[in-house]
Every structure is written in structure tokens, then in C-alpha cells.
């Protein structure tokens, strides 16, 4: 079972300490095959656990939402998908993702219809749950993962390591394992039930294309990601900043920019083709994508609005309109520094930091954020895992903590524990090069303290009934705790990007001298 990782400089005295050499000596592809098979087994094993809203009428959960979309898309004509009608009740899990999600639902719906027609029949299939239905649904996620996310990671790793010296390649296996075995992503996609692997996979593919200097291909992939889940817009400032900055440094900026613009518009046009016949139709779809009526936050998400609502009752004090503006201003002002840096100095390294910073500012300040959206900052963090192992680990810990209440509702405690443990084990796999930055006494004491309190929080949440007056006390504490760590990480990573660009400027000046 397994494989895994890594690498290592001869830190241990034995000469054959490169214990994973048998995996890595055959090149990227065989390493990747091995690790991805293990990642596949883990996903399959998580998939046998319950999904969100299992056996909880009348609304069920995300699983039912996805199934309902398949039902709608294969039974109604394209134009009706986003329109409220007697056959399409939008108040019952109406489609609220962009058209690519709808097409994906259509394809998967065909598959379900072939093997289990009653699971997607119009109306009568509401709340449909069965052994085979669950399996088929799970397999649609798995196949999306295998067809999009896994190849994208391979593409990324190939591009990322192609220019690195041999010595640094040793950490490749570990890096692959970190990206493929991200516990949060596996829990949400294969446990809770969603298709984040598609939009995140497309984003990784876009990053990989950009790392191999194929900016046009990268923008196509990113446009597709945007058209699968509008949340991919969290990365948009980084992509925009980097690509713009790069174009500006070319000989013919206007031409380069218009090329990119055309490619993006073209991709959008193709995806939106069925809705382009009238402005109303397009607006109808657009309005479904921005559910402002749901309020600035929901549940207990560890972002700025929800956390500060303990002190300031945003929802009560301000009109939605004002809140929209407030959150927009806050988001923009927080991602702006990072984006400007990218425009001024578009290097690949700072591009990844930029993605992390921009997605964090959206997660922390934008309107209507869900706890699952922490997956978006996690993705660039996982791509940066080799440079910033500590940040990645820390973010995983608190992202997991922040999703704990959600996963507990889904009855996914067991996979939560198993994947948490698995992540720690993989992170500290034997033979890994130790990061010297982590060996400082003060830091490690503080770390242990924080980790212990997070462990205690888990236990309290599981066992203690909160006082009647504050039924969501533990959720609130978990949220506060995660929020504080997210803010710290985001500050660190912003300053890191800043330092990087200063460093680069110095380098460039030196060269020009």
C-alpha cells in the first residue's frame, strides 16, 4: 500500500539512506503512478463513508444538490436549466454554478441514467438514495479527480521541476504526495460530496501552463476553472496581475494583452454559447451565480465578517447593499498590494504567493463565503509546500479544524481522524529532508501549545454539550481560533511576497549593473 515519498539528502549516517530511491530513480512518471495509486485507494476508502445530508429529508445536502442538477440537466433543455419554472423549482437546490458545472452534471447524469434510470428521473427522484446510486455518484467524483486533478498535478510537477537542479528533485515525491493527499480536499470531495477537484484541477493546470510559459493555454484553463466554480475568481487578481505584468514587459504589450483577452473571451463565449442568444438569458444565469440574498456569511465560517459578528452584528446593523460594498472594498484593498507586486514583478515564484494572498483576502473578506472555500487558499499553499512546508502544514491543521463542525454534521469523524493522521505521517515521512527553520525552541513550544489546544477543542466539541444560552459556543471558539491562525498565515505570506519582490528587484539591479 503505498508509496510515498521522498527524498532526502544523506542526513542519516547510513549510505543507503535514500530509502525512497526505488520510487524516484525511475523518473517522475513512475513516482507519480505509485503515489497516485495510493491516493486513489485513500479516496476510494473515504468514499465508503456517508455523504452530506445522507438520509435527512427534506432538503438533504450537497449530494442531493449534485444529483438534482443531473436530474434537471438531462431532463430539461439547456435554456431551462437556470430558469425557474413548473419543472425546475429553483428554490429546491437550483443550479447556482456556472455552465461548465451544468455540462458536467449533464454528462454524469447520462451515466447515471444508463445504469440506474430512477436515480435521475424528473421529480420522482428527489431525495433518491440507494446503494448503487451512491456508488455511481461517488465514481463520478473519482473519475473527475482521475481525469482532471491527477493529470493536472503531473503536469504541474513536470513543469515545476523541469528547471530545477537535480538536488531539488529529491523532494518531488513528497511534493506530489502533499498535493494529491491534501486531507481537506479529499474529505470535501469524496466524503462530503462536491466536485472541487475539477475547478481546482483546472487551476493547477493553468498554473502548470504558466510555469511552462504557455500563458495562452494557462488562461484557457483558468477561464474553464472560473466557468466551473465562480469561486475560482479568488485567484483572478493573481492571474490578472501576473499575466498583465508579463505582457507589459514584452515588446508589444497591447498586442499581447489583446491576445490574452481574446482567448479568455473566446473560452467564455464557447462555454456560455447556449445563453448568448439574449442579454436576459445571460443575466438570468449570472444572477443565479451571485446569491446575495443569502447574507454576508452563513454558519460559522472562520472569516472576518463572521468572526467579528460576535462584536458587531453586521447583518442587523447594515443593509445588504452596504455590506456588499463594504466587503468588496475590504477584499480589494487586501488583495491589491499582492496584485500590484505581481504587475510590477511577475516572477513565477511570487505568482504562487500571490495566488495564496489573493485567495486569502477573498476567503477572509468577501461576501458569502463558505467554510469549504478554505480549499482555495490551500491549493496554492500545497503547490508551495516545498518552499513553505511549515505554512502548508499549519494551514492544513487549521483548515481541518475549521471544517470540523461541518464534517461532524456529515458523520465523517472517522475519515477526518484517519486523514489527519495520514497527513501528519506523510508530512513526516522517514527520510524526509528536515527543514532547519523548524528547529527553534520558542517556536516549537508555541506550536505544541497551539496544537494541544486544537486537540482539546476537538474533544470538547465532540463531548461537551454547550450551555443552552450559547448553543454554538464551541463552533464560535473553533472559528475564532482558526480565524486567528488564518490571519497570521496571510500576513506572513503577504510579507513573504513583498520580501521576494524586493529580493528580485535587487537581483535585477545587480544584473543590470
Amino acid at each position, binding site marked *: *500500500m503505498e508509496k510515498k515519498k521522498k527524498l532526502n539528502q544523506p542526513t542519516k549516517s547510513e549510505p*543507503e539512506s535514500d*530509502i525512497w530511491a526505488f520510487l524516484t530513480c525511475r523518473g517522475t512518471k513512475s513516482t507519480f503512478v505509485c503515489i497516485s495509486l495510493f491516493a486513489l485507494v485513500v479516496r476510494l476508502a473515504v468514499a465508503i463513508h456517508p455523504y452530506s445530508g445522507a438520509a435527512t429529508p427534506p432538503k438533504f445536502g450537497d449530494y442531493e444538490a449534485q444529483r438534482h442538477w443531473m436530474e434537471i440537466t438531462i431532463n430539461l433543455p439547456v435554456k431551462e436549466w437556470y430558469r425557474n419554472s413548473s419543472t425546475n423549482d429553483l428554490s429546491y437546490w437550483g443550479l447556482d454554478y456556472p455552465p461548465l458545472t451544468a455540462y458536467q452534471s449533464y454528462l454524469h447524469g447520462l451515466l447515471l441514467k444508463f445504469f440506474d434510470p430512477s436515480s435521475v428521473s424528473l421529480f420522482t427522484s428527489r431525495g433518491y438514495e440507494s446503494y448503487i446510486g451512491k456508488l455511481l455518484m461517488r465514481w463520478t467524483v473519482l473519475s473527475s479527480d482521475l481525469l482532471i486533478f491527477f493529470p493536472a498535478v503531473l503536469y504541474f510537477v513536470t513543469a515545476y521541476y523541469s528547471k530545477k537542479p537535480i538536488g531539488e528533485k529529491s523532494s518531488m515525491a513528497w511534493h506530489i504526495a502533499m498535493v494529491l493527499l491534501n486531507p481537506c480536499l479529499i474529505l470535501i470531495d469524496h466524503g462530503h460530496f462536491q466536485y472541487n477537484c475539477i475547478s481546482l484541477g483546472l487551476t493547477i493546470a493553468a498554473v502548470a501552463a504558466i510555469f511552462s510559459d504557455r500563458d495562452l493555454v494557462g488562461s484557457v484553463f483558468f477561464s474553464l476553472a472560473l466557468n466551473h466554480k465562480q469561486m475560482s475568481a479568488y485567484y483572478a487578481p493573481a492571474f490578472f496581475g501576473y499575466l498583465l505584468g508579463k505582457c507589459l514587459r514584452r515588446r508589444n504589450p497591447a498586442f499581447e494583452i489583446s491576445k490574452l483577452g481574446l482567448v479568455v473571451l473566446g473560452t467564455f463565449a464557447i462555454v456560455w454559447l447556449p445563453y448568448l442568444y439574449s442579454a436576459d438569458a445571460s443575466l438570468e444565469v449570472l444572477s443565479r451565480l451571485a446569491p446575495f440574498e443569502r447574507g454576508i456569511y452563513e454558519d460559522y465560517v472562520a472569516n472576518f465578517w463572521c468572526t467579528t459578528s460576535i462584536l458587531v452584528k453586521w447583518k442587523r446593523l447594515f443593509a445588504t447593499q452596504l455590506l456588499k460594498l463594504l466587503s468588496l472594498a475590504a477584499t480589494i484593498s487586501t488583495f491589491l498590494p499582492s496584485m500590484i507586486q505581481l504587475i510590477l514583478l511577475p516572477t513565477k515564484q511570487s505568482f504562487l504567493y500571490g495566488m495564496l494572498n489573493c485567495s486569502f483576502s477573498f476567503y477572509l473578506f468577501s461576501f458569502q463565503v463558505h467554510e469549504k472555500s478554505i480549499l482555495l487558499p490551500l491549493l496554492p499553499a500545497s503547490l508551495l509546500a516545498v518552499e513553505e512546508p511549515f505554512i502548508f502544514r499549519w494551514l492544513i491543521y487549521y483548515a481541518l479544524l475549521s471544517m470540523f463542525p461541518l464534517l461532524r454534521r456529515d458523520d465523517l469523524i*472517522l475519515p477526518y481522524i*484517519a486523514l489527519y493522521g495520514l497527513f501528519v*505521517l506523510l508530512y*513526516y515521512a*522517514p527520510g524526509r529532508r528536515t527543514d532547519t527553520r523548524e528547529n527553534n525552541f520558542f517556536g516549537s513550544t508555541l506550536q505544541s501549545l497551539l*496544537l494541544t489546544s486544537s486537540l482539546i477543542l476537538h474533544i470538547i466539541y465532540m463531548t461537551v454539550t454547550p450551555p443552552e444560552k450559547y448553543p454554538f459556543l464551541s463552533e464560535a471558539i473553533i472559528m475564532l481560533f482558526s480565524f486567528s491562525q488564518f490571519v497570521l498565515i496571510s500576513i506572513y505570506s503577504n510579507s513573504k511576497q513583498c520580501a521576494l519582490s524586493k529580493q528580485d528587484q535587487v537581483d535585477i539591479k545587480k544584473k543590470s549593473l
Partner: protein
Amino acid sequence: MKKSPKNNQRISDIWWFALVAAALKLLLIPAYRSTDFEVHRHWLALTHSLPLYHWYSDTTSPWTLDYPPFFAYFEKFLSFFASLVDPTMTNLHEGLNYVSPLAILFQRLSVIFSDVVLIYSIRKLSKDLKKTEKFLTWALIIWSPGLFIVDHMHFQYNGFLLGMLLLSLSYLEEGRDVMGGFVFAVLLCFKHLFAVAAPVYFVYLFRHYCNGGIVKGFGRLVVMGSVVLGVFAAAYGPFAYYGQIQQVFHRMFPFGRGLCHAYWAPNFWVFYIILDKLLAFLSVKLGFNIQAPTASFTGGLVGDSSPFAVLPTITPLVTFITVLIAITPCLIKAWRDPQPRMVTRWVAYAYTCGFLFGWHVHEKASLHFVIPLSITALKSAEDAKHYFFLSMVSCYSLFPLLFEAQEYPIKVSLLLLHAVLMWFGFSSHFSGSKVGKASSSVPEKDDKLRSPNIDRNAKFVVGWCGKAYLFGLFVVEIWGQFLHPLIFGNRLPFFPLMMISIYCALGMTYSWIWQLRYIAKSR
């Protein structure tokens, strides 16, 4: 499960392997469980609620206790905790067919925790290996797909029993014969199926331990005898005291069962049955009047009617004698030259014979020799080749245990992962001249130098014959899963299973011959 990272850096590497496996085992908790789950649950209830002298005579459930007393004591031990976790689980009557999330969690965790014995003995066995060899050996055993399928999905306690077997073998390899004999005796009192290797143990210990002149030899024989008898007395004593001994043996050896298990284990008798069918078919074609047999091979309890149409019927005694004859070559070797370095192979060979020729063999019994053979897999390229082949066949023959759609991709990817790991691991370890040279060609193991058919620079290559056979596995699987239902619909439902049995039996027979040749040639 939330290990603090600092502890992690210090844990020894083998626990890393074990914990990774444990994480996967945790994930598999809700997977399909066979009736063995209820069997073990019932034994918990049985040992918890009844006095010892009723354990082997109770008939509340059809799943009567048919393991030796130490296993019953083990269940009794577990039942203390079980009754704290969920009292209904250990209730003899209300607990029948009882399933609750807590009960599942408890029983699954008991399997996961009992694997500690396996980990401990592997650590002991591999302590003299070099690091890369250690890692490969651990990966072969701890991440063995067979153990995942049988123990952690199907539900049994093989990991812990095999751990004891390996522990006993590691004592023998170290030359600590009394400890080796003691652990083996204990193992026999946990599960008597392991007794197939008892003749090997007997001959080996008699020649290796009880030597050095008549007086010293006799003294040692007495020591060994009293250790073994002591273990048996501890196990069976209480039952003998209550006059239950006959009842215990009656339950432990249910010869009323048929020659084959419900799904035919891939062994020699599969060929025998097929030959019989073929002859009967031909005879009928030629105009002879052959009566169709009324009994089946699998159902036991059918009185005297023979399940065979043409060939002579097979009785437990016949299988017993066949097994003994098959083991004889290795007994002779053990008698002539009892070397510790060969003992693992001899024991594995004995289990292979038991598997191939035994009465009512379960497909799971192939683990009894596949797991010990992992220890020898890295000794030479030939060994690696044989092991690669054998472990694939053995794991594939376990596939019918998990027949539900949900586990299907899990078992397939477990096997693929195992195959890929073995492939990469073996080929870099035995790479002839290149990368693996540093690790595989250092003559630090004298047995490498002494064994005749070992070329230290040999490459790990699976020949076209092996590749063709393994590709055949793939064809059999595709046929059974997809083409057969497509072509025959629901007719001949046993046919795909039969093909798996026959095809894997070919592989098992090859492995038996290979081991036999190896043992015969060894000096």
C-alpha cells in the same frame, strides 16, 4: 490519532509504516463485512456470558466456537472491553446478528490493535537487514493487500496470528529454539490450522535442538517436550478438568464439511474435480451410463454419497496422507541438515502443501505461506521473481471474498499498488549493475554466497511466461466481471468463480514446484 509532530519525528520507521496502514484500516471500517464478523461477535458473547465448560457445547448460534482454547481466551479478554463499549454486543441471545456502529468500531479496532504483534515480529525479523531492504520487507508485509482484504474488510484476525508465526520463525533463525517452539505451540492453541507445519517444527527442533550426545540430547528433548506440553496444558487443561476435551476436539475438527470450501480454494483438488467432470462428460458421450453425483464438494454433512462421478472419492485421510507425502522432501532436508536460515522456507513450503492438498481449505490460507515468504523475497532475484508472482496470484485469489460493487475498486487498486511497489522495489534492488548495485551486491549475507542458484548481480526480470500468466489473470477478471454477465446473463453464475479457482490453482502449483525445487537443490 492526532499525533503531535514531535513524537512523529522520533518514532521508529517501522511504526510509520504501521501507522500509515492503520490510517487506511480506519478508513475501511465501514466496508463490507462477511459473516465472520458475526462469528467473532458471537464468540465474544459466548465467552462473556457462559462458563468455560459450556463454550464448546453451546448451540445458540450456528457459528459455534471452532478455534482452540487460547483464541477463546483471547475473545474472553476482548469481551471485557466489548461489554463496556456496548453491552448488547456481548449478550448471548439479544446480541445475535447485532450490528451497531459502536460494535463495528470495537471489533474492527480490535483487529487493528492486535496487528501490533505482527509489527513487533517483523521488526525483530528485519533488524539485521539494511535500510532499503527493511523498507521493502515492511512494505511487503505491513501493506500486504491480502491482509487488508481478509482482516480489515472480510474480517478475521490473521495479522495477529501470522505475527506469532513470524515471531516463532525469528526465534528459530536466531537459534533460540526453545522460544521458537514455545511460540509455535502457543500459536497452535490459537488456531490449529497452523499445525500443518508441525512436522517441520518437530523434525527441525529434534535435529537442531536435541543434539549433542544422548544424554544432552535427551535432556533437551525433555525440556522442549515439557515446554510444549505446558502450553497445551494451559490451553486444554481447564477443559480436560471439566471433561470437555472430546467436545472441544469435536468442534475443532468438523470433518463433516466437504472437500472444498463454498468458493473452491485454488488448490490441487480443483484439477481433480475438473478431471472428474470431464471424464463423466466423455463417458456419457461414449454411451456409458454414469449416475450424476448427488452430493456436492462443498456442502458437507452428506453421509456416504460421493461427490465424484467417475474418480474415487477423496476422504480426509487421503488428503492427510497426500499432504504428508508432499512435505516429506523438506522433512528429509531438515533431518539431514537443520539450518536456521532455511527454516522459514521449510515452514512456508509446508503451508503450501497444506494449502494445495488439504481438506476443506480456505482461500485465505494462502496468507500462511505468502507472508512468511516475504521475508525471503529479497534474498535473490529468483526469490523476488517467485514472490512477485505468488503474491499477485494469492491476492487475486482472495478477490471473490469481496463481491460487492463498493469494494471492487478498492481491492483492484490495492493489488495494483502492491504490484507497482513490488515492481519498482524489486527492480531497483536487483538491477544487475546499475543503481541497485550498492545495495544488492554487497556480499554481507553469507547465505547469499552459499546458496547455489543465486547470482548476486542477477536482474529482476519477469519472463514472458510470467507476464503471459499475469496478463491471463487480467483476462480472467475481465471475463468474470464484464464479458460473462454480458454473454450469459444470469446463467452459469459459478463459472467465473470456477475460472478464478482453476487459473489461480495453476499459479499456486507453479509456486509449489518452485519451492520444492529450491528446497531440493539447496545445500
